[in-house]
């Protein structure tokens, strides 16, 4: 997911007997589906985990501009260009809401940015894959935004108020993105032979990386259990991945495209598809920096940050001068 393999702080779920009075009150509020607000008391581990999770989600929105931005200047029609620009603008906006939500936990956007740029924080593995043909822009909307929605719809109910509210705003826009992506795929799948080939090629390359977005199985993870007890994680990774496959396979069939998985078949008993797992060694390699675009993505972000320093400094200096002039006039 956009927030993927977030390390939960602490040592796992505490029993009631192990909790302090404050911790027990806090857990009661969560169990009662009350929202936790910035000024409320919260366990430090809850705060630390949320900062990692929201920060990683925000970084993903920001880095996620790059693979799509890669096609803005080559979009094939004015309308497609406008739609793609609007989408990428939305993603930057999502980054902004999420950084603001993280700031309510006591960490600044600049601090988070530095942690991204020096490698202490991550972004979703999916954005380390390249966009190579125009259908990739369709596939990203359909599959990547689609997978994001799977995870983010339940997070609208997450226990931390500012995060939950950010998710509600974001989810509305993500479903637009998914529909627009699918619309591109539709045009391509119904198009010329070359366009069909592009569409199939895009699905071939994005299928397994999309499944990886949910992270490896965490049904036995004590960390995930803690995040679920805090309601900052609502479903297990496997549950979400299954839902995603069940939703997506019929959509691929409708497009006349082949999901690149020979093991894929309907399992009537469980009421869902059986499917092959992605190559998890590839996933771990990508997280460690060994994906097709890790270097490029980080170099782009570092360059934007460094080249932009004089702009940020200039605007700050001007702001200070204006303040000073206002004071002098008063």
């Amino acid at each position, binding site marked *: 997911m956009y927030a993927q393999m977030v390390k939960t702080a602490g040592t796992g779920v505490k029993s009631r007997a192990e909790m302090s009075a404050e911790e027990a009150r806090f857990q009661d509020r969560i169990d009662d589906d009350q929202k936790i607000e910035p000024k409320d008391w919260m366990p430090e581990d809850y705060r630390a985990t949320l900062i990692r999770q929201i920060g990683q989600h925000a970084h993903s929105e*920001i880095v996620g*501009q*790059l693979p799509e*931005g890669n096609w*803005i*200047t*080559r*979009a*094939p*029609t*004015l*309308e*497609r*260009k*406008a739609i793609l*620009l*609007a989408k*990428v*603008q939305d993603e*930057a*906006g999502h*980054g*902004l809401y999420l*950084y603001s939500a993280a700031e309510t936990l006591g960490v600044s*956007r600049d601090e988070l940015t530095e942690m991204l740029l020096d490698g202490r924080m991550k972004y979703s593995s999916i954005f380390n894959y390249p966009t190579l043909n*125009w259908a990739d822009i369709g596939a990203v909307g359909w599959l990547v935004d689609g997978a994001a929605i799977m995870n983010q719809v339940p997070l609208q109910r997450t226990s931390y108020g500012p995060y939950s509210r950010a998710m509600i705003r974001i989810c509305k826009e993500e479903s637009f993105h998914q529909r627009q992506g699918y619309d*591109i795929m539709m*045009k*391509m799948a119904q*198009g*010329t032979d*070359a*366009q069909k080939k592009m569409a199939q090629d895009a699905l071939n390359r994005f299928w397994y990386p999309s499944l990886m977005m949910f992270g490896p199985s965490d049904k036995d993870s004590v960390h995930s259990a803690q995040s679920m007890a805090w309601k900052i994680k609502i479903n297990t990774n496997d549950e979400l991945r299954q839902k995603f496959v069940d939703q997506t396979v019929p959509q691929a069939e409708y497009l006349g495209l082949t999901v690149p998985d020979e093991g894929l078949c309907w399992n009537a008993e469980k009421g869902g598809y059986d499917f092959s797992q992605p190559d998890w060694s590839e996933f771990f390699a990508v997280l460690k920096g060994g994906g097709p675009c890790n270097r490029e993505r980080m170099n*782009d972000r570092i*360059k*934007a*940050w460094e*080249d*932009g*320093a*004089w*702009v*940020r*400094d*200039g*605007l*700050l*200096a*001007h*702001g200070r*001068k204006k303040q000073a002039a206002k004071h002098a006039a008063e």
Partner: protein
Amino acid sequence: MTKDDALFQFLLRMGDNTLILGHRVSEWCGHSPVLEEDIALANTALDMIGQTQLWLGLAGEVEGNGRSADDLAFLRDAWDFRNVLLTELPNGDFGQTLMRQFLFDAFQSVMLNWLQDSSNTRIAEIAEKASKEVSYHLERSGDTVIGLGDGTEESHAKMQAALDYLWPYVGEMFDGDAVDAVLAKEGIAPDPAELRPEFDAIVGAVLAEATLTVPDSPFVHKGGRDGRMHTEHLGHLLTQMQWLQRAYPGATW
């Protein structure tokens, strides 16, 4: 030159300006100095692409050969483009991009203001819609020019360098020709020279607050709005922008 020929040329000028500058601005996507600027630049580009659809759509109608806005954008070669040279110049650094935007926004706001009273109602309608967007662009690009011009020593120097580089491209926007003369007579579009005083007032006020100095040089680069001689940059821009349409003719996207 017939009135329709002149009108077609004028609409290409309007649509090509927003198309080419919108394209340039969209190149920033994901690479801006701050997140707010990524959002603002994407938004500016988006507005300009939207305006392009209107101007080129109308151009195609006026021409009457069944060409759509997309046909005009993606299937003409450089010599048929009618944008001013300013819009096709490379982005340079953020300061140069914003200075270029400001100079264009100032021109465009004065132009659209005039066009809202055009005797051609289709043009007046587009101008009215676009002018709301452009006043916002102008406010934003003007504020940024002021902030960076009157920021640090470094930002001031970069903005002055941007202004020095771009200023010779300003004159072309006001350089009227036979096309303009035909339309001015009909009250459809202004003689662009008429717009200059208002432009100078807007630009003068912002540059003064930005502590920047207009270079004292009469030299003017021309050749875009009549297509006589574009810069070398336009061909590269079109190569990228038109690639899919050229490589896969007849496909729908």
